[in-house]
């Protein structure tokens, strides 16, 4: 499976391969393109990645999640190129013995992907303009582009 792909994400196929006799809980997260952002009407998004680094970093994040929460399954895939409204841009699936770990690790993986991994989105708006957006802004709080405020930590 390509971690970074130009193809439409096949959530169904990924979900179908995510059942495991030792796991009691499977959590799937799908980050999908909304028709609105910060009050603006969005037509579609376009994602760009530094593919080699992004692939390596996502693999490391998944491995770290597997170890920390003793997961049966941890996978993630991020789409690049044009992604239309309601289509999935990123999917994360985690499976574990109990549900607490599946939720926590899932959140951990998506938070780290969003903050750290070299993937960018450009919003193409209904008014014809475009905007590179949704940047990680943590440096404003932490004073360091390598230090992030993760949602999974402040819950």
């Amino acid at each position: 499976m390509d971690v970074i792909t130009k193809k439409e994400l096949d959530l169904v196929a990924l979900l179908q391969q995510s059942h495991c006799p030792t796991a009691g809980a499977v959590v799937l997260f799908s980050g999908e393109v909304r028709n609105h952002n910060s009050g603006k009407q969005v037509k579609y998004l376009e994602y760009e990645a530094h593919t080699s680094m992004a692939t390596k970093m996502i693999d490391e994040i998944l491995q770290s999640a597997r170890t920390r929460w003793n997961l049966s399954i941890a996978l993630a895939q991020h789409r690049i190129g044009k992604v239309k409204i309601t289509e999935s841009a990123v999917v994360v699936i985690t499976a574990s013995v109990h549900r607490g770990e599946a939720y926590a690790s899932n959140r951990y993986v998506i938070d780290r992907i969003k903050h750290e991994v070299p993937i960018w989105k450009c919003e193409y708006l209904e008014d014809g303009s475009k905007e590179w957006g949704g940047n990680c802004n943590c440096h404003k709080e932490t004073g360091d582009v390598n230090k992030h405020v993760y949602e999974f930590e402040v819950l």
Partner: protein
Amino acid sequence: MRIQVFAVLKDFFKKEFELSANISNIADLRRYLSLENPNAAMVLNRCRFAVQDEFVTDQYPLTGDEHIVVIPPSSGG
């Protein structure tokens, strides 16, 4: 050295270009690029830099043979 930029930086620089200026480390490179295109300075201040697909610090020394990737703040997902 070869510079590769991504995302919003492509509005300010060519996607990939050669640089032959005398630049001794990443902090120097950040300053050089900011002076070359002051509109990009704010973004550059928030960028991470990578050499050979590994993040490097501002103090990382440059010889001139590197392939350097300039990485704006992430916005995936």
